[in-house]
């Protein structure tokens, strides 16, 4: 029978629990990820009587967790995007800082190297001027190596961060699977009541996981959540997890690949992973780090090769042809571990203007070799047949293959990623600096005409007769012989090419006038080769001859700067989106202290009223007892 006492008692109990829930909300107002809980009161159905249905008080239907699934999911997605944008921004800014730094950057060192060459051209016999060229070259190669070292450090950091993030993600998926288990258990135990705080905890973990790697989720009937990566790989299925592994790239140990799962079921996600810190790190590697290292190496290679080529056209103080001033970087070739054939591949640089800074894949399909661009997979055409005498020539590289390959044998060619670290100065003795040109010209003092030598340059230092003395004799006013052979017609200002040099005469020689081209003796103070070396400042060396080294470096710095600027803008935009998403979620799920304070007042009054009702029930009973006492 429902009477005032039991009604009052039900009210007391209900309001006690309600107040407890309000108190729980207030206590957790600042807890991250807390979803406010609301008690749903329901009136107890009354029992029938002749006068109508008399109510039986109040009960609690459920303690509802005010969560909006859609806004939670939105928040999670934005958290993933924000974490990715943040990681990309921070790492890109580091690279930008390195390249822009006046002390670490290349710009000043490059300019001072060219200036030192001009100073040596102005004072070729000064030991100090020659030494300062070697010192400037050393500083320049130190800067290249310094930058490369920093880049490689960043690269290693990417690997470490990937491992940490993967570990963290694996711990989170483990915890989520555990929670899936407990939530199902608790729900079962209470006959379908949702374990609110466990759900909150799981949502928290999911958000943290999204910050590591982008995820999507699906809700199962038993309350468990299945988690998938954004490219579709399952990470949590009910209470089972699949782990993310970071391992070294099959070709080389300084790059990484990501897989999900173990053993035969392992799926690589390196190229497709998106979202979170992991997505940000992979994007950074692909978009900023690899191109920057490749570009830096391309510039180093262009510097070494163009300087060496010009240097070899001159002679040093000992009268010998200049040897390499810089050591030319080597090209790394990596084998795929699954290669079963016995092929060996070696690669050298061919034309620095054609070097692209990208990596290439060489593959044998059982019949012939093909070359692909490693990042895009598009095939690259080449000339040649691959032998030492006739190597494959493509993308500024000379590729020689030997041995017998098996079908699907693969090699990764990495031309420039490490080139900047290989750059070094190969000459230490200032007198071995080839400042002078290999040949000199003179005109006989007995010449009667007005002919004079305008310019004399070495065009081909490899010509074996370059340094043989040659006499040019004018057998008439308009024709001359070269060491007796000829005669050739004389055109003022026209190039006379012979034995690897190029001579230009001007004026009008008379019959019998002679000019000579002779080798430059040791100890000469001639400066033409130093001038030509200094002229490399503006000469197009890279990009098919369209870009000077300084322009190449400037492009690298500006491109990275633009990437950093865009990454910052993207991060700021993404942060605004995340803030908006959080505000949306809090609108439904966040605790408002004033609201809870009002609730406290309300339910406290209700509790007091219910207590009063019990007091009244008691006095009613007392009256009844007093009425029947004898």
């Amino acid at each position, binding site marked *: 029978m429902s009477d005032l006492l039991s009604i009052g008692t039900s009210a007391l109990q209900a309001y006690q629990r309600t107040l407890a829930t309000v108190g729980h909300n207030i206590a957790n107002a600042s807890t991250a990820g807390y979803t406010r809980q609301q008690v749903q009161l329901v009136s107890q159905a009354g029992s029938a009587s002749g006068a109508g249905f008399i109510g039986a008080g109040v009960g609690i239907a459920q303690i509802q967790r005010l969560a909006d699934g859609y806004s939670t999911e939105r928040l999670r997605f934005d958290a993933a995007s924000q974490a990715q944008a943040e990681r990309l921004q921070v790492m890109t800014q580091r690279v930008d800082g390195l390249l822009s730094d006046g002390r670490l950057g290349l710009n000043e060192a490059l300019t001072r190297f060219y200036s030192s060459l001009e100073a040596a051209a102005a004072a070729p016999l000064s030991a100090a001027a020659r030494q300062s060229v070697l010192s400037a070259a050393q500083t320049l190669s130190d800067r290249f190596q310094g930058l490369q070292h920093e880049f490689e450090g960043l690269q290693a950091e990417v690997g470490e961060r990937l491992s940490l993030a993967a570990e963290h993600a694996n711990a989170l998926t483990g915890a989520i699977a555990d929670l899936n288990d407990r939530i199902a258990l608790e729900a079962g135990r209470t006959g379908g009541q949702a374990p609110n705080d466990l759900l909150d905890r799981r949502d928290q973990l999911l958000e943290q996981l999204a910050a590591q790697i982008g995820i999507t989720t699906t809700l199962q009937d038993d309350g468990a959540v299945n988690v998938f990566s954004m490219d579709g790989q399952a990470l949590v299925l009910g209470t089972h997890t699949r782990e993310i592994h970071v391992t070294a790239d099959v070709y080389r140990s300084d790059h990484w690949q990501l897989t999900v799962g173990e053993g035969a079921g392992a799926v690589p996600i390196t190229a497709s992973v998106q979202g979170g810190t992991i997505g940000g790190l992979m994007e950074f590697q692909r978009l900023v780090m690899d191109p920057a290292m490749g570009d830096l190496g391309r510039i180093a290679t262009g510097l070494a090769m163009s300087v060496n080529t010009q240097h070899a056209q001159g002679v040093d103080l000992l009268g010998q042809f200049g040897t390499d001033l810089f050591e030319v970087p080597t090209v790394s070739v990596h084998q795929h571990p699954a290669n079963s054939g016995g092929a060996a591949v070696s690669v050298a640089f061919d034309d620095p203007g054609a070097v692209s800074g990208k990596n290439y894949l060489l593959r044998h399909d059982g019949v012939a070799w093909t070359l692909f661009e490693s990042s895009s997979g598009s095939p690259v055409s080449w000339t040649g047949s691959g032998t030492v005498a006739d190597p494959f020539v493509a993308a500024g590289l000379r590729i020689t293959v030997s041995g017998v390959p098996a079908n699907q044998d693969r090699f990764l060619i990495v031309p420039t990623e490490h080139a900047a670290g290989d750059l070094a100065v190969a000459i230490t003795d200032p007198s071995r600096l080839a400042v002078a040109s290999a040949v000199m010209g*003179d005109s006989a003092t007995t010449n009667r005409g007005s002919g004079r030598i305008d310019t004399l340059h070495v065009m081909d230092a490899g010509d074996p007769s370059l340094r043989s003395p040659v006499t040019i004799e004018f057998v008439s006013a308009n024709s001359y012989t070269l060491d007796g052979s000829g005669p050739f017609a004389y055109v003022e200002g026209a190039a006379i090419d012979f034995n690897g040099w190029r001579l230009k005469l001007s004026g009008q020689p008379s019959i019998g006038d002679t000019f000579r081209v002779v080798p430059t003796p040791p100890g000469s103070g*001639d400066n*033409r080769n130093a001038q030509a070396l200094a002229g490399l400042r503006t000469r197009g060396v890279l990009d098919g001859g369209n870009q000077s080294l300084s322009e190449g470096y400037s492009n690298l710095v500006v491109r990275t700067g*633009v990437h950093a600027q865009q990454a910052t803008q993207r991060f700021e935009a993404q942060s605004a989106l995340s803030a908006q998403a959080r505000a949306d979620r809090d609108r439904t799920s966040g605790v408002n202290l004033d609201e809870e304070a009002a609730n406290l007042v309300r339910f406290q009054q209700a509790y007091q009223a219910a207590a009063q009702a019990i007091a009244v029930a008691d006095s009613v009973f007392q009256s009844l007892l007093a009425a029947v006492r004898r």
Partner: protein
Amino acid sequence: MRISTDTLYRSGVTAILDRQTLLVRLQQRLASGLNFSTAAEAPAAYAEVMRLDNRLVELERYSATVSMAQHRLQMEESTLADVTESLQRVRELTLQANNGLLSAADRQAIGAELQERLNELLALSNRDDGAGHFLFSGAGGTSPPFALSTSGAVYSGDQQVRQLTVSVGQQIAEGDSGAEVFLRPRNGTGIVRVAADTANTGSAVLDQIALDDPANWDGDSYTVDFSAGTYEVRNSANVVVTNGIYQPYMAIQAAGTTLTFSGIPSDGDRFELTPSESQDVFQTVSNILDTVDNETRSAHRQNRLFNGLQDLDRAIDHILAIRARVGGRLQALDDVAAAQESLSVQLQSARSELRDVDYASVISDLQQQLVSLQAAQQAFMKVQGLSLFDYLR
């Protein structure tokens, strides 16, 4: 619309943090005086500043080279002035020596001074720039370029003059080779030369020689033979080109030249008319010295001194021409230096405009942001201070 307490707090704090970030950026700009320190902050401006930096370093280098070139050319100019002075003195001495009334002692004195002048010329040709590099040795620089021998000057330098790059695409020679300066002057009139045969016994002396008709001068060698009061001019194939009766001061015309002689030639006397050749300055002075010291025959002395004067004049003209060229180069260098100076100023100001902070505008931005931050902070405190709990008993 419902707002949670968390949202209220977050939005207030975010506003404060954003203002602080802006403030810090402005503060960094003010403290460093630069508008940007990495490429990310302003990529296009950074690239431009980098380019300007490079150009300025280049200009600095060019300025140093210009100074060096000016120094060397000025040294060459002053040395050539000294050479000219010396040659003028030799000319004076030659004129003095041509006076038939000199005594043996006078001639000895003239000879002694000529020898000194020759030594002086040798020393001038071997002058160095004070740092061990010889001015007139071409590109070879470590040993004196000129030495005298009995057969004339020996030049051990080369003809490769160093070009210095003083500006973009502009090179200037820093000197001239010794061969060019000292070995190239032509003798005679520059085109033709008349010399007396050493076996002459008469008193014929060459008085004048002029090239009236250059079109008819064919570069051949001719001989003028005197006998029995007549002259015959033959070319190198021994064909008589012109002949006639000889009279002193009468013009003899052959192959475009006009010759006049004074005095009386003996039979069999011969003069040779040849194209001018290069004759080095030292040889010219040595010839005059030899004539003064050793030539006792009056007619021969006069002829040889006549040749010597012509040769000297050619040498002096040649050196003057070279001095003019050097002057031209120095002028060009002055122009280059002035242009570089003004370009440097322009580039520096362009760079400063891009890179350096405009203090007025940044400071006023800073003030604005400070006010903004203060407002955000105060608003936050006011809003956070309101709570229903304050009113519950």
